């Protein structure tokens, strides 16, 4: 038999000849979320009965084929195997050739879908925290924080930056296990921080000052800032730095952490955008002072938080050191994940009705709030010490003391793996979109961002961010694609035996 004719591909033979299983091996139970690049389904492995999450990789609008973000995520997830990192079990394909107008198979439109199969997780941290009536206990918060740090330390030890740490990317199952998820923005980094990476990562509220000041060489410290924000948020019961745009984000950071100068952050004045954002007057650091007002922030919590929310990334605590912090080794100790209460899994489809009722209740509550304007948020502050509610923080409304386990109405909390399309409640996320375009244009080179498109993110990435691999993202050569390296360069062509350059090859004309 001769070698295949030009253009011939053996795509007729479907999986398993393709090398991966077919999605038909799973029974889709229901849609449970809308991911960054596709829908997420809860599904059952027909053979084993195992419940999994199927994340469809969205391919429409992909002029450049399979999304590079998905390739990156798959590469990274295949490398990571840890109990606090979500496990990619396999990748399956769906047979299914598109047909043309006459109903004949169209060779050029093979739209068979590709799905990532993950272990199933019941909740995410934001969803859980936003459940009406739910309050975490201190041992529970310590337990989640320790798992978050353990998972993150594992990633950092494998030279991987997550670059999108936030509550909705921290999945929690009913065993109390917390796992890092959504590695769509993650990437490898080199120990010496030599690569030029994009600074347009991490959801705004969790984005560290160095990225906001334009750093393109950075390391694991960026994730630790996000961890600090989440830690404080868990105790404070609402996001601590909810900026509406980069400018406001930095102002909020400086108001809390003081203004940066050469003393507290050597080199900061040479940061690309330092002069654009320099605070007009020096501000005092008041992390301890501010959070110290609230009893849930004990001495050790303040000490740890103070080390996480450090402006200078080189002085910020590492995940490994944070795990050794007194906070995790003093009473009340982190609880055993297994001892945590289980919460009824609530998926959008199941709880549609319940949610409607909930919404009506919220409306009513809102009306009440008008009469009590100090009630700003629906999250409840943590219970102190394993269920004992001590005096609440000054600005919190007094809750009835409640020694019972957290009440768990089936709330509409669930964003699974991917991001919610829109804010689940008022002010949960800042307005999304590209309102910061003008600011980004000062970046030169990288700012031809018109062709980036936002893909269903709740919170804003500056200018749409590096999510959209199509269109301009290629030609521009975003700074996060490090090229070449030590091997490129001069020697490629020279060949002592008449190698590469001089040799012709079979097909050349």
């Amino acid at each position, binding site marked *: *038999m*001769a*070698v*295949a*004719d030009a*253009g*011939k*591909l*053996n*795509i007729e033979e479907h*999986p398993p000849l*393709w*090398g*991966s299983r077919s999605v038909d091996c799973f029974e889709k139970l229901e849609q449970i979320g809308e991911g960054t690049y596709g829908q997420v389904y809860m599904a059952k492995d027909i053979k084993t009965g195992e419940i999994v999450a199927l994340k469809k990789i969205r391919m429409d609008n992909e*002029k*450049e*084929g*399979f999304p*590079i973000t998905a*390739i*990156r995520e*798959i*590469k990274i997830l*295949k490398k990571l195997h840890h109990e606090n990192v979500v496990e990619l*079990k*396999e*990748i399956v*394909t769906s047979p299914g050739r598109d047909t043309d107008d006459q109903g004949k198979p169209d*060779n*050029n*439109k*093979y739209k*068979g879908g*590709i799905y990532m199969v993950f272990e199933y997780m019941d909740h995410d941290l934001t969803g859980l925290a936003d459940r009406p009536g739910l309050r975490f206990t201190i041992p529970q918060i310590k337990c989640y924080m320790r798992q978050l740090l353990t998972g993150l330390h594992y990633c950092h030890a494998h030279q991987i930056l997550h670059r999108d740490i936030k509550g909705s990317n921290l999945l929690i199952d009913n065993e109390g296990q917390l796992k890092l998820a959504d590695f769509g923005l993650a990437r490898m980094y080199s120990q010496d921080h030599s690569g030029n990476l994009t600074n347009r990562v991490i959801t705004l509220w969790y984005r560290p000052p160095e990225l906001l000041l334009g750093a393109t060489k950075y390391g694991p410290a960026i994730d630790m800032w996000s961890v600090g924000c989440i830690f404080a948020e868990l105790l404070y019961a609402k996001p601590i730095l909810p900026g509406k745009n980069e400018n406001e984000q930095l102002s909020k950071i400086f108001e809390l952490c003081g203004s940066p100068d050469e003393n507290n952050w050597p080199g900061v004045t040479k940061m690309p955008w330092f002069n654009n954002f320099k605070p007009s007057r020096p501000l005092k650091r008041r992390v301890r002072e501010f959070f110290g007002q609230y009893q849930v922030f004990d001495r050790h919590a303040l000490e740890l938080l103070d080390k996480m929310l450090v402006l200078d990334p080189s002085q910020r605590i590492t995940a490994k050191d944070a795990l050794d912090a007194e906070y995790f080794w003093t009473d009340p100790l982190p609880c055993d994940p297994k001892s945590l209460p289980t919460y009824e899994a609530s998926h959008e489809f199941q709880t549609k009705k319940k949610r409607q009722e909930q919404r009506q209740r919220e409306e009513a509550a809102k009306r009440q709030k008008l009469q009590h304007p100090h009630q700003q948020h629906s999250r409840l502050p943590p219970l102190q010490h394993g269920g004992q509610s001590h005096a609440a923080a000054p600005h919190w409304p007094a809750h009835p003391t409640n020694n019972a386990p957290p009440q768990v109405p089936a709330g509409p909390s669930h964003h699974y793996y991917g991001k919610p399309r829109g804010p689940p409640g008022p002010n949960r996320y800042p307005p999304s979109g590209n309102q910061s375009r003008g600011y980004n244009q000062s970046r030169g080179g990288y700012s031809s961002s018109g062709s980036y498109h936002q893909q269903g993110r709740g919170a804003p990435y500056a200018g749409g961010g590096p999510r959209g*691999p199509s269109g301009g993202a*290629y*030609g521009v050569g975003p700074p*996060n*694609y*490090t*090229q*070449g*390296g030590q*091997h*490129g360069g001069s*020697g*490629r062509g*020279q*060949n*002592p*035996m008449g*190698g*590469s350059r001089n*040799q*012709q*090859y*079979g*097909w*050349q*004309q």
Partner: protein
Amino acid sequence: MGETSWYKTREEIEVKSPSRVDGIDSKQESFQRWSYSTFLQELGQRLNNPQRSIATSIVLCQRFFTLQSLAKNDPKTISIICMFIAGKVEGSPRPVDDVIAKGYRVLHGKEPTTEVCARLKGAVLTGEKFVLSTLRFDLEIEHPYEPALDWVRRSVKVEMDAKRLFQAAWNFLNDGLRSSLCLQFRPSQIAAAAIYLGSRMTNVKIPCDGEKDWWLEFHVTKRQLCEICNQTLEIYQQDFLIPVKHEAKSKFGDGGLLRPEQGR
């Protein structure tokens, strides 16, 4: 995800490949391997791709044809797809239109028409998922460049010698991509052989510290080292490198596509 090994013995590659089942003999498969690897090297350079990304495209293509037959899959289209994928995998993506246009130019020596472009693009975008899936999405490809460079830097103290040795090893590594070595041996093992051949070529002596054989840290046995060296050298002795224009034409039926090495 459970990983299955991509490594095979030479016998498995030569006797049991899917192409063999379809009646394509081992020699022809070697020729095709040599052709698509050389094509990818050239295309990669025209796309200004880092060598790492070029090497990845070649490994992906070779792995693909351990699972799929040359009789059922046009190696030119598959290699263009592999180049397209490798760009994304290695973080140096090139637009699909560029990969196609430059690929066509390398193959046919002329610009593709709009129609041809559209057709090729359809095939590449359709085939991409097929190739990715066939490759089981194993996209983390290691290469021998790093271990070779690392060893030379550490072991050869005279800078000039280190440079010459690494250059020679580097060339063997690139040429070695045209053999099936990457299907049989681990990158560090291939690196050791390239260093050995490089030292023979440049007369740079490999430093020995006492009793320990220098190649041990590459996790390769002496026997494997010999085998890799021999197979590397075989690349330079392939009989399809000898002008066989007429025969080749009829054999591969592709007319103008084939032009064997001149003057060999």
